[in-house]
């Protein structure tokens, strides 16, 4: 714990700022105004982060693919997103002739709104959570589940078979992996005994020696985190699970028929979902805003949170640059035949961990069970019939 008042103030700087700003208003309006202020900050901050990330992504991908990436606009191409933003704002907004105009219009909007809602429950630093809900995790998943419908709306209203196919794929994929995502998070809930995300972070914010009690440093937590990471990648339709937008086969999936600002909204929604899901992963498994080593606690908590999120984003980009895309049936098989059983097993191991009590034995037992299951199921999954060439059944 940073005891120095300077560090405490630095840590709480945003809270202090908010209270100071709100202080100008009459007392009755203060809570509402505080919330509005925070919402405004979130709504401004994350799109900014999004802009930054796109540059990083493009440059990072360029690095991985042995090319330069954007380097024309501004220093090292860092103003590229501004140019992109202006471009998409000024482009003509095309709505296909036979499209369902209302739904076509609502789809990107509802997507972005739902994704923004997810940030409401993420604790981004000590005391820095917009609404510390009792059922925060459930809220998060409820919101992320609502995005699926937006994707469907976009795909269906475009009246384009590629869009529809892409949307169906996306929805099927998101539903399948949402199960895994949810179940891998439930392990954390089982240990913490709370759905409140700030409680979950608080439960991880202690140290043995200099090492933190993050859940990723337990066998079940590691397994859960791996599952969570895989499911999160699929949930956000990122490579290698980016079939719904597979450019080579579906043009661009459900946002084929979107252009201009609506397209930008989808783009924004996707990246925001990435941020949100990384933020949740950080909160659940990586100790949220807590410092990785006990002597680093003087660094403000929000710095830790954002660096962890950005690290996850970097991993996302890295995977995109490295891994080839899966096939649809492989994707589904992987979700239902490997991820789901393994996550369920992880839940059982978590329960075991919970009830075995302190001691080295539970480490050995849960590690052994998980490792064995991983090896066995991996071997089963790698059998030819799952990943080999596939006989296609064409539509009747």
């Amino acid at each position, binding site marked *: 714990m940073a005891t120095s008042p300077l560090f405490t103030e630095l840590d709480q700087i945003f809270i202090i700022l908010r209270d100071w700003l709100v202080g100008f208003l009459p007392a009755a309006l203060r809570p509402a105004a505080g919330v509005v202020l925070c919402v405004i900050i979130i709504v401004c901050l994350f799109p900014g982060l999004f802009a930054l990330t796109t540059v990083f992504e493009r440059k990072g991908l360029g690095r991985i693919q042995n090319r330069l990436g954007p380097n024309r606009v501004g220093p090292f191409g860092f103003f590229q997103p501004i140019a992109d933003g202006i471009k998409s704002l000024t482009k003509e907004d095309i709505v296909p002739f036979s499209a369902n105009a209302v739904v076509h219009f609502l789809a990107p909007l509802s997507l972005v709104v739902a994704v923004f809602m997810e940030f409401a429950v993420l604790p981004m630093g000590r005391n820095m959570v917009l609404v510390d809900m009792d*059922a925060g995790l459930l809220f998060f998943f409820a919101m992320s589940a609502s995005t699926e419908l937006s994707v469907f709306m976009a795909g269906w209203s475009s009246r384009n078979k590629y869009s529809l196919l892409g949307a169906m794929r996306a929805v099927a994929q998101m539903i399948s992996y949402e199960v895994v995502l949810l179940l891998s998070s439930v392990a954390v809930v089982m240990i913490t005994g709370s759905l*409140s995300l700030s409680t979950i972070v608080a439960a991880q914010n202690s140290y043995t020696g200099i090492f933190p009690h993050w859940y990723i440093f337990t066998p079940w937590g590691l397994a859960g985190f791996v599952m969570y990471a895989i499911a999160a990648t699929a949930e956000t339709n990122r490579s290698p699970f980016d079939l719904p937008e597979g450019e080579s086969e579906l043009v661009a999936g459900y946002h084929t028929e979107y252009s201009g600002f609506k397209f930008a909204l989808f783009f924004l929604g996707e990246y925001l979902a990435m941020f949100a899901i990384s933020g949740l992963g950080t909160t659940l498994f990586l100790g949220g805003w807590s410092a990785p080593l006990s002597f680093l606690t003087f660094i403000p908590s929000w710095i830790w949170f954002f660096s962890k999120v950005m690290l996850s984003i970097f991993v996302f980009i890295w995977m995109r640059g490295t891994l080839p895309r899966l096939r649809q049936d492989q994707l589904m098989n992987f979700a239902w035949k490997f991820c789901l059983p393994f996550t369920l097993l992880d839940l059982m191991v978590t329960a075991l961990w919970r009830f075995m009590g302190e001691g080295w034995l539970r480490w050995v037992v849960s590690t052994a069970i998980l490792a064995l299951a991983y090896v066995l199921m991996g071997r089963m999954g790698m059998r030819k019939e799952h990943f080999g060439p596939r006989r296609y059944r064409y539509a009747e």
Partner: protein
Amino acid sequence: MNLVFYLLAALTIGGGLAAVLLKHLVHCALATTVAFAGLAMLFLQLDAQFAGFAQILVYIGAVAILIVFAILLTRGSELPKDGVFSRSWFVGLVIAAGVFAVLGWAVLESMRALPQQTAVPAVTVHDIGIALVGRYVLPLEIVALLLTAATIGAVIVAMHEKERPR
């Protein structure tokens, strides 16, 4: 009885009406989603946070998706040739109106002298969890079984019959 309630009630009822009346099946499904969302917010209004979020997760996240999938799989997105309402729609309408009439009557009748709690119940998710695995553990297990059975059943029912080798 405040403005928020009226707004949400209007949203829910409007969504429900649209779901029943719209011509296009996909529109109906989307309107249903609106009704679901309105209901979820009514739940929140009723301080039932958990139920509200569960409602969103299950109904918007799963049931609505299921419905649109079913619509697309049954080619329901194409408009039917012979009208969307069944032959004796009028009878149905009358009966539904009758149901509303007696229900409303019953509500008003019984509300006359019923004492009601207005204090916000101090119930946390933790309490719900304890109740679920404590007093309600048997229903929970049964529901788990039911869901498993339903999953398997739905898969089997909707599965392609195996093509016979020729």
